[in-house]
């Protein structure tokens, strides 16, 4: 379109503001306190409404795109959400899920009041309870667990957090080891591959400037960070960049690719290594970059100890070591035409230092050894020197900014075996998929006093959901289950308390993500409360502004922390106490005022230029860009302060002294600040143990996996050799997402449901013909522990041998239980004495009466198939990632089969759990450590806690 005008450029940057001819995309910020718009439905009669435009950020996927809430001055209702032109990542634009936030806010099925279970857990009966009663009960239990030193018995289990750092500080103040994420059903595999290169666990491709964009994911339609990434990928493409997509199915992203490769699942690493081998043998590598930044000396020492320590020798040996990965080999492993592999190699070789690559979930999350797929993909960046460059691939940490509150609590010194079992010392994230099994095994104390599921649906989203139900129902294993959620979910009905939390416009959070070469921080706000404040309407907390008694989590955590430590004797309360009003709770305004004042560089000055406080600035604009166009931070010279007291170790890593009481940072080793180079320069480098890019990972080698210390190819658990196609075996790809839905979080957005509302099994047309099935036919899909029944879509959009069933669908509620009728079918749920679970739909989705007339217009009926129930846990022994792909057998449905049927034997799921557990190489690692210190953890304990002996000594 025409020029981005950046009207406010002289003052506040508006990267998403645009005007052309007479039209502009957003009202100017000076109008945001009173913007008049005409009512659309009354048009052409001019019925004006005056709105406050209050920025917030989306709470659907993790991209944190900016939103502007239109709050009507007449009744303080939220009319709609548009984008926020001030947001550098989303630049005023959104995907479908952004505007659909209004559906979630006005969902007649949402939970408006705190609820307490009546009858036995899982009976589905709830009564309204006051916040006060709920908080007293929960706070008392947590206090007892802390006082009795059962500090691994409090667990906060989070889906996509949608915030940075707030709860981590709360948990640290409580002194518990209780942060559990969803990440090992998500991105742990991809993160692992990146971690062992550079410490940082995620890539941040500079798509906009790339010459070649190479994706293993579908960033033009989903994922981290869909809308911001799609903008920049398409910009690059419009500028002539080539797009290559590896995906088993024709995603919307693949449909835009110059080259779409649909390899056999798990063979992706073989393809990348063949490309690497080509780059090496043709010397299309950036030798200078590699010489300076790759730990090639270690490579030689460990793998070629007799070779002279010489870079050229290294290159020769490396070339020889990867010579086995020929195009022929890769094509055969991947079952793709050799021309595709060759073409990919030529495209990559042509990219120079402008190669933007990305994998997040997809293959890395699907396969045993999937982390090596990410590691081999990034190998291509390392070889081409496209790391941290313009148009290259950066570590996420360069493009992300987390402000830390100045007063941080003492780090804890506990280690929870329920989160970080010793068998998985290299797991990227908490072993959350194993929680029910670990509790059954009696790990630690074998129980949890309080388990928070926070905007998270563990029994639905995790594999082996029936084992979750068994454990969630067992009060000897979970003392209290508190579900913090805006809507009813399968898991919430197995909670003791269901506490209503706010949507995108009903809570405070800060977020930052590596959407592009920029460090921005965005602010989520309870917009109605902000509007009340602007208009001088008094309130006590967000409950006075939100619908019903919906609360924001931050205030909830503050209040709960006070109940845990009412007199301050545990040393917890002080972190939530007002500085100005001692003895009183800190308000959110006080918290963010201080955070923005002290911890966001540049913000106080930018705010002052507007005549505002930092908090006022963030309330008005919702976002601040701390830095942009940051490249090659590995070369950043160290400051005097960093060098002060730092001493180089034998590998040149500059370290400051630390003790066992030191707390490692989020990523990286405590005390390490940089690296001394051959030429004597001292720069920041990477966050890996060597501060270099670790082609040879000493971590992997020293913690039991020497054969995988370099980028390699691990045969997947669903490799072509392991699938007997003559016996109607297939690989099931259950983990792809649709552009309009986001796990179970979007279930209450009617405008999203109406776009995507069926759940067909993508089935290659030729395969379908062979099996004698057609579009619409029912088939029975049998996994290792059970089976489900689903409808076929015979299509050319997926490769032969692989079937695909999207994520998001298969939602259910039991008869008489609360649920969301937009998306859930009614089921009959049965468990036999000997552990056979059966789920059968007794009703699909139907129109229903509510205050929203649209609920009577529901025209879809398919709740989908809850396939995850039939998957056993399959944790990768290195990364801990649940390997999503399933080996399945498919047959025509039997006479007794009904659509959506699920049957699972949980005894078998225990067997599979034990079998995968046996594949591990348990710690402790060197120095008696439970986990390498440099690897990311959300709440890092003291260094002492990392050491097995030290913890036992404490116990």
């Amino acid at each position, binding site marked *: 379109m025409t020029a981005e005008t950046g009207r406010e450029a002289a003052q506040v940057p508006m990267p998403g503001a*645009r005007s052309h*001819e*007479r*039209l*502009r995309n*957003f009202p100017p910020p000076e109008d945001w306190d009173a913007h*008049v*718009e*005409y009512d*659309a*439905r009354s048009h*052409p009669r*001019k019925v004006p409404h005056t709105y406050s435009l209050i920025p917030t950020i989306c709470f659907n996927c993790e991209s944190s795109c900016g939103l502007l809430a239109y709050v009507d001055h007449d009744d303080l209702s939220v009319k*709609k959400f*548009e*984008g926020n032109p001030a947001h550098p990542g989303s630049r005023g*634009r*959104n*995907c*479908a*899920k*952004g*505007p659909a936030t*209004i*559906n979630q806010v006005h969902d007649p099925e949402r939970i408006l009041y705190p609820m307490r279970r009546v009858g036995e857990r899982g009976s589905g009966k709830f009564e309204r309870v006051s916040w006060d009663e709920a908080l007293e009960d929960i706070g008392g239990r947590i206090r007892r667990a802390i006082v009795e030193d059962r500090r691994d018995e409090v667990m906060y289990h989070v889906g996509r957090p949608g915030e940075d750092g707030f709860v981590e500080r709360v948990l640290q103040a409580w002194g518990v080891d209780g942060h559990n994420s969803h990440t090992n059903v998500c991105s742990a595999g991809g993160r692992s591959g990146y971690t062992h290169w550079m410490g940082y666990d995620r890539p941040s491709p500079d798509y906009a400037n790339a010459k070649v964009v190479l994706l293993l994911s579908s960033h*033009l*339609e989903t994922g981290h960070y*869909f*809308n911001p990434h*799609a*903008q920049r990928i*398409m910009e690059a493409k*419009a500028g002539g960049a080539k797009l290559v997509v590896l995906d088993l199915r*024709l995603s*919307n992203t693949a449909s835009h690719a110059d080259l*779409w490769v*649909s390899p056999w699942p798990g063979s992706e690493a073989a393809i990348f290594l063949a490309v690497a081998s080509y780059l090496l043998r043709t010397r299309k590598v950036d030798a200078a970059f590699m010489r300076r930044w790759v730990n090639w000396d270690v490579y030689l020492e460990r793998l070629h100890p007799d070779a002279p320590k010489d870079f050229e020798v290294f290159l020769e040996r490396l070339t020889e070591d990867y010579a086995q990965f020929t195009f022929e080999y890769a094509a055969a492993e991947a079952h*793709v035409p050799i021309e595709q592999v060759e073409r990919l190699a030529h495209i990559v070789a042509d990219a120079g230092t402008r190669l933007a690559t990305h994998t997040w979930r997809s293959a890395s999350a699907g396969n045993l050894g999937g982390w090596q797929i990410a590691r081999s993909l990034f190998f291509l960046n390392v070889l081409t020197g496209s790391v941290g460059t313009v148009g290259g691939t950066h570590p996420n940490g360069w493009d992300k900014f987390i402000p830390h509150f100045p007063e941080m609590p003492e780090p804890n010194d506990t280690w929870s075996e329920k989160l970080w079992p010793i068998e998985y010392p290299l797991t990227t994230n908490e072993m959350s998929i194993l929680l029910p099994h670990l509790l059954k095994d009696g790990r630690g104390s074998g129980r949890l006093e309080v388990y928070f599921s926070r905007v998270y649906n563990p029994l639905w989203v995790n594999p082996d959901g029936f084992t979750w139900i068994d454990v969630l129902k067992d009060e000897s294993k979970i003392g209290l289950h508190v579900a913090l959620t805006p809507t009813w979910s399968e898991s919430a009905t197995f909670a003791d308390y269901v506490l209503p939390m706010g949507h995108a416009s009903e809570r405070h959070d800060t977020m930052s993500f590596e959407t592009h070469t920029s460090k921005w921080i965005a602010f989520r706000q309870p917009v109605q409360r902000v509007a009340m404040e602007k208009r001088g309407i008094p309130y006590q907390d967000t409950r006075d502004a939100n619908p019903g008694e919906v609360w924001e989590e931050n205030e909830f955590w503050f209040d709960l922390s006070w109940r845990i430590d009412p007199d301050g004797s545990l040393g917890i309360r002080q972190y939530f106490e007002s500085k100005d009003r001692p003895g009183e709770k800190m308000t959110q305004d006080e918290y963010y005022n201080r955070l923005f004042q002290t911890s966001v560089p540049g913000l106080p000055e930018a705010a002052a230029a507007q005549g505002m406080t930092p908090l006022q600035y963030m309330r008005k604009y919702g976002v601040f860009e701390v830095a942009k166009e940051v490249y090659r931070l590995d070369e950043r010279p160290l400051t005097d302060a960093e060098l002060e007291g730092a001493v180089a170790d034998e590998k040149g890593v500059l370290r400051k002294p630390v003790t066992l009481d030191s707390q490692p940072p989020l990523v990286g080793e405590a005390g390490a600040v940089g690296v001394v180079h051959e030429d004597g320069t001292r720069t920041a480098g990477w966050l890996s143990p060597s501060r270099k890019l670790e082609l040879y990972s000493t971590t992997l080698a020293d913690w039991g996996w020497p054969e995988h210390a370099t980028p390699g190819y691990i045969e997947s658990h669903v490799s072509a050799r392991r699938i007997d196609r003559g016996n109607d075996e297939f690989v099931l790809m259950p983990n792809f997402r*649709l552009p*309009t839905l986001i796990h179970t979080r979007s279930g209450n957005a*009617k*405008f999203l449901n109406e*776009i995507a*509302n*069926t759940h067909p099994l993508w089935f*290659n*047309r*030729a395969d379908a013909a062979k099996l004698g099935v*057609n*579009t*619409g036919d029912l088939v029975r899909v049998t996994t290792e522990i059970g089976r489900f029944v689903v409808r076929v*879509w015979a299509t*050319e*959009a997926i*490769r032969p041998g692989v079937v695909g069933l999207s994520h998001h669908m298969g939602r259910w509620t039991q008869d008489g239980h609360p649920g969301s009728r937009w998306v859930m079918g009614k089921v009959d749920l049965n468990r036999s004495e000997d552990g056979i679970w059966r789920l059968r739909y007794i009703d699909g989705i139907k129109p229903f009466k509510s205050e929203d*007339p649209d609920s009577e*217009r*529901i*025209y879809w009926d*398919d709740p989908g198939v809850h396939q995850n129930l039939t998957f056993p846990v399959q944790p990768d022994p290195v990364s801990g990632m649940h390997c999503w792909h399933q080996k399945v057998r498919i047959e025509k449905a039997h006479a007794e089969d009904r659509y959506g049927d699920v049957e699972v034997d949980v005894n078998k799921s225990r067997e599979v759990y034990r079998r995968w557990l046996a594949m591990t190489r348990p710690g402790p690692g060197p120095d008696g450590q439970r986990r390498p210190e440099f690897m990311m953890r959300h709440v890092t304990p003291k260094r002492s806690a990392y050491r097995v002996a030290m913890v036992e000594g404490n116990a």
Partner: protein
Amino acid sequence: MQYGFAIDQRTCIGCHACTVACKTENDVPLGQFRTWVKYVDSGEFPDTTRSFGVMRCNHCTDAPCVQICPTQALFKREDGIVDFDNSRCIGCKSCMQACPYDAIYIDAESQTAAKCNLCAHRVDNDLEPACVVVCPTHSIWVGDLDDPTSGIAKLVRTEETAVRAPEQNTGPNVFYLGADQAVLDPLAAPVDDTYIWAKPDAQRLETAGDLPGSPRTKARTTLNTAHPRPWGWKVVTYLWTKGVGAGALMLAGLAYLLGIGLGGVGDWVAPVLALFGAATTGGLLVWDLKRPERFLYIFLKSNFRSWLVLGAYVLTLFSGGAVLWLLAAGFDIAWLMTFLAWAALPAGAMMAGYTAFLFGQAEGRDLWQSPVLFWHLVAQAVMVGSGALAVAGAFAGWSEDEWRFVAAAFVLGTVVHLLMLAVEYGGKHASRQAATAAHVITGGRYARTFWLGAVLPAGVAAVLGAVAWGAPASGTAAGLLVVAGLIAQPALLAYESVFVRAGQDMPLS
């Protein structure tokens, strides 16, 4: 000035943000869309492709919806936006027939027509439409196509573009860049039993087999929205009731002028049939309105370019004439009778035939765009009108002349109707859509109803009528004509049902 859109399908990622932003901006009810994204998958693995197309109102330079709208609820603004005013809309759905783009729907909340109006309420505020603002890839351009310096005008001038249904000559103002023809052409890509993540509506499933598709591209529509037929049995029925009334009065008039008389049938039955036909037609028309309480708007807010309005006046005048006829007959006013008899001929023809002009304005329905439809409707009216008179004649003690006159009219009407069918369905069609619809009638889903329910009985009735016409006056001959007259009625209903349905079955998006 002409506002329009340019949609760059080269960069569109099919994300549906435009769809949802539009719905939240305009409070569009569930299941209805002012803009949506169509998906088409083509080719065979591994050379499979997927194309997207953003569908919406084309803000046509010659907007057929504006022309057909009886109450000026749809109108073209100075700035070229085709806008609507739901306070004027009576919910007649004719705009949905006129639009060749499936752009209009009846809003489930207001029960009035609605569509993309380029967010006119925002444009009046100097703001871009919601879909343009939200689009992650800036694939939707808006602006004044008439202003050569505008961004959109430059884009359309310098890039290769395509429009939907250019053959309709509506002057569409939504230009597509890099769109797959299989997406733009509604006949090119049939649906399978499922979409990629939704279910095709019943009508698309039913009509999937009608579409030729392409054996070369194997293109299949893998996501789209529902556009059920706006008109159903009420319109089918009124085509018949209108025909009976019009035909009866026309023949009574002709008989009067020829001095044949028809006795009480001419004096009373014909005008009563005419009144009954007109009243039923009017009743069905009003019943078919989504806002029946607003039916007077047709006269109060008339758009005199709309054949719905002109038709309503025809209906009114015709009914008035029939009332006068009764008065003239009752008070035996000869001069008035002569005048009414003359007037009945054109009035009856218009009564029967104005629908041809209305259907002609239904630019979205190619099957209905027949140049002979007017005469066909008149012939049908003669067929069913004379058939109805014959039934009445059985009780009237008609003379041989009277029988012969009615028999002749019936035979001529029926034969012409059959000849017209031969012309309509045997000849070449002006468009692929019309040809496809015609094939559905003669060789597809409606073939049984067409051949066995409409053509065969009409043929039998024609033969019976001819026998009655040629035979010496007798009870048998009269009986044959009565039977023929009775057979003709359902035969016409059967035909109208397939004609009305098939016309609307062809997908426009």
